[in-house]
């Protein structure tokens, strides 16, 4: 797992319930705005279907590094915060590191206890989507460099 993500998990695990909520709210506030070129491409192809709110994800792999951008509504701070956490933890990682991120990351962060079972499954869907997109982008990059 990338060191950045490791540090985030450790911070959340050490926090109590209210601190976890505050951390997630901070992540939600700090989600970087999409670059204009991507903001113009918020379409069905980039929409994360697993989320109840409109979340858009842009995943690229260049020179063996993953780049992540995302947008999620301010009215849905839980998913916005989690997406922001994933970007901070995984942007710049290698594709292998992203694959190795545990599928139950939400539990690792102690968020299931805070949010409840029914709310966290959509969050895990975001991570699954990132892994799938990274795999696709990594294969595409491999094909283009070996061609």
């Amino acid at each position: 797992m990338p060191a950045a993500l490791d540090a985030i998990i450790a911070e959340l695990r050490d926090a109590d319930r209210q601190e976890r909520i505050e951390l997630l709210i901070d992540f939600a506030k700090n989600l970087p705005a999409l670059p204009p070129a991507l903001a113009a491409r918020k379409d069905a192809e980039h929409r994360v279907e697993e989320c109840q709110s409109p979340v858009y994800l842009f995943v690229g792999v260049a020179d063996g590094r993953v780049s992540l951008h995302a947008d999620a509504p301010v009215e849905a701070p839980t998913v916005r915060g989690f997406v922001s956490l994933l970007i901070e933890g995984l942007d710049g990682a290698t594709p292998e590191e992203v694959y190795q991120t545990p599928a139950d990351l939400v539990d690792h962060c102690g968020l299931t206890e805070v949010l409840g079972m029914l709310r966290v499954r959509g969050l895990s869907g975001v991570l699954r989507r990132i892994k799938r997109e990274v795999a696709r982008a990594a294969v595409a990059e491999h094909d283009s460099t070996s061609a």
Partner: protein
Amino acid sequence: MGESYAHPEALVSADWVQEHLDDPKIRIVESDEDLLLYDVAHIPGAARIDWQGDLQDQVVRDYINADKFAALCSRNGIAQDTTVVFYGDASNWWACYAFWAFTLFGHKNLKIMNGGRKLWLDEGRPVTREVPSHPATNYQPKGGDEAAVRAFRDDVAAHLKASRPLIDVRSPKEFTGELLHMADYPQEGSLRGGHIPTAKSVPWSRAVNEDGTFKTVDELRAIYQKDLGLKTTDDVIAYCRIGERSSLTWFVLTYLLGFDRVRNYDGSWTEWGNLVRAPIARGE
């Protein structure tokens, strides 16, 4: 000005709430889909009651019992005679759900704030992050109105046999069976798609405006009485996926249109669509 709702006292405006922020006989309660919203900002003095963490039993698929309900009310400073005003995100789905759940325990004097959380914020009204601490009460539950407002699967089966009206308030694709869950809610799917035979499809969203407020009584009558042919004396059961969207429809039929007997089937499609040999209809 059109006609007023059947029970206009059950719906209050943001203005009304703002005038009653310091009224000790009134408790404002936020209930949201997104748990963090209350922590981000809420109406000054508002308490949070969470449909999942507070109102549902954490082991059995059911609501909390009367003792836990009493404890929940007591710690939020709600007495038996406190007027509780609910508001929340998603056009007040969860506010209506909490209203309905409070009805199970026989609490009277419940209200919904029209337009919910979004309208309050859009109008630039005051918000805070401060969590209030209201003096605890010693709530004595009256014991409830469950039979009047809650339908179980056997009630639904009996309703079906007696050809009484059922309303399915889910999205059209969930109703026809194309989707096993509401678009974007894959975690709450069922093994079979479709709807309870004879149920009429009236998506919950038809009852609300873009800004999250409820439609006028004339508009609502046109939907449920004219188009659907229901009468206010009908015995109606509404359902959705887990009973939250149908709580909104229950509120509309009961309080805004004055139907005598409306029950919410909270087992909804996540129960019916998983029940062995339960009859299911597909398509329109």
